[in-house]
């Protein structure tokens, strides 16, 4: 009987694993099946056509995502890396602990709330939807993730390295930037890449900040399109061409995200850069 329970537990566990894998496989399958046929050069570079009529593409959306990612990196990476540096090198005190705790809370925050805050703060104040608003919203979402991964990567650098540098008469800040950070470089970069992949897929905050557009980039203070947003807008349209285009855009987005994720995973295989690689 005890044997039986043990076996049963194993099979139930395996069943749960299978149940979780089915949606992923289904999603990938559907995205590829429905989206592959839509993708061609025109689709990837053209602007959307008239609503209701087939034709057009997701050019502005792809451009928009790339621009947003670029801006978010400019704003969010220095902020996140420096915060991570503080927490790792100077953060062993009550203030540091509080910041770390709140950082982890912010990391789990619903992105829609952040979108609403930026909407009120920037969009309403400037009376227009804008790329800048979107960049700020995404930076706020990215910040705690980069902070956390930077801190973890820096903490993996053994103290003996810091000691060696300090003993040479090198100042603390120089030690941190030129010795510790360079030693932890690959971990920090990995963290940034994963944060970018996550942020690139966010759509809720974009609804309230960049709004979406039929046109290519037309200024930092104007609305703009982005991949996740375009997918959303297409999903709301009742036309078959919209459905097909939605799958096509989804395929492009999921390829971007999965390539980064799998690429990072392969590149750091066997290296203990994160607490999660405890397979």
């Amino acid at each position, binding site marked *: 009987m005890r044997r039986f329970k043990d076996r049963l537990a194993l099979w139930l566990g395996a069943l749960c694993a299978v149940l979780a894998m089915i949606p992923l496989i289904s999603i990938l399958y559907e995205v590829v099946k429905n989206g592959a046929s839509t993708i061609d050069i025109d689709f990837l570079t053209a602007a959307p056509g008239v609503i209701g009529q087939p034709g057009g593409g997701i050019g502005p959306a792809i451009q928009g995502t790339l621009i947003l990612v670029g801006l978010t990196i400019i704003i969010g990476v220095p902020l996140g890396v420096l915060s991570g540096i503080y927490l790792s090198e100077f953060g062993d005190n009550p203030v540091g602990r509080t910041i770390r705790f709140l950082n982890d809370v912010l990391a789990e925050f619903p992105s829609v*709330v952040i979108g609403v805050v930026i909407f009120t703060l920037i969009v309403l104040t400037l009376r227009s939807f804008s790329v800048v608003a979107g960049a700020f919203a995404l930076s706020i979402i990215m910040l705690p993730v980069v902070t956390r991964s930077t801190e973890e990567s820096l903490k993996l650098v053994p103290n003996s390295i810091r000691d060696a540098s300090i003993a040479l008469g090198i100042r*603390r*800040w120089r030690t941190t930037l030129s010795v510790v950070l360079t030693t932890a470089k690959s971990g920090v970069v990995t963290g940034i890449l994963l944060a970018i992949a996550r942020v690139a897929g966010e759509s809720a905050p974009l609804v309230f900040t960049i709004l979406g557009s039929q046109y290519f980039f037309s200024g930092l203070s104007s609305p703009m399109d982005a991949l996740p947003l375009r997918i959303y807008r297409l999903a709301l349209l009742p036309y078959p061409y919209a459905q097909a285009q939605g799958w096509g855009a989804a395929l492009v987005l999921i390829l971007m995200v999965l390539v980064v994720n799998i690429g990072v995973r392969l590149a750091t295989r066997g290296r203990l850069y994160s607490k999660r690689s405890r397979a």
Partner: protein
Amino acid sequence: MSNRLSLQKLLEGLKHPSSDGFFKYGSLAFAGSVVAIIVLSLVVLAQGAFLALTKFGVSFLTGTNWDAATGFGALPYILGTLLTAFIAIIIGVPISLGIAIFLAEMAPDVIRVVVSNIVELLAAVPSIIYGLWGLYVLRIWVANYVQAPIQGSFGFLPIFGGTSYGLNFLTAGLVLAIMIIPTIASISREVMVSVPTSQREAAYSVGATRWEVVRMSVLSYSRSGIFGAAILGLGRAIGETMAVTLVIGGASGASALPTSLFRPGQTMATILVNQLSEAESGSLQLAALLGIGLVLFAIAFAINVVAQLLVWRVLKVQGGAVE
């Protein structure tokens, strides 16, 4: 004596401001931006919602109307959020736990690596794509294989009433369940893995089977950590927006009250997506929507704080490397 010495050092530092001090306090300023963001969000939302909160008071939370004429009440959306989150937890937690136990304790190496990588990739899929899939695929499945048969036999029960062709609370809850599984599973697994081997060995040494070891040593030890993981999953389910928007049907006002699993509905997150960008500046509706944003902020904050406390404490106590 140590206080005197550190005060002395501080004074010395002030006399000779060094690049190191600049660096330390400069990076502190950056790190503090997190705190500033949270506080700023609270202030912005409270200020924006002021109009609606003062006008409606408590009835903002208990009313069910949603128009400029009869007033704005957030109850249907609060309940909608709670119902979908509840469904997500009921379905998601057991499966996540099963996966965590399977991966932490039972699976052979190769399978473990494959499955855990797939589960982590699930977490990387953008939520809008879950929404798309939910809209075009899952919904059909629910409509044909869940809603139809159940309504066929039990449709007279109010909880199973309504026509919605799959765009309803149940589908939304299912999508959410799938989305929170990676979170709960991976944190639970970390908690389990950090249970000291000595605990397991003690159980094995009295002749327990693998499952019994799990039950006796690992699960009881990990209880609060797993609970924390579930709460984190709950937090995620409550805040999830785009995927839910596409499959929940978008009702509003009193008709959005979750009276049945198979009726279309609305959550706090989805009504924001549906209405905020078009709301008129200065209007009561805008204030009401921001009020919902505030409620969502408060709930998400509270849940995340509790979850972090639980998970932190457990992982630290068990010596796991969480930081």
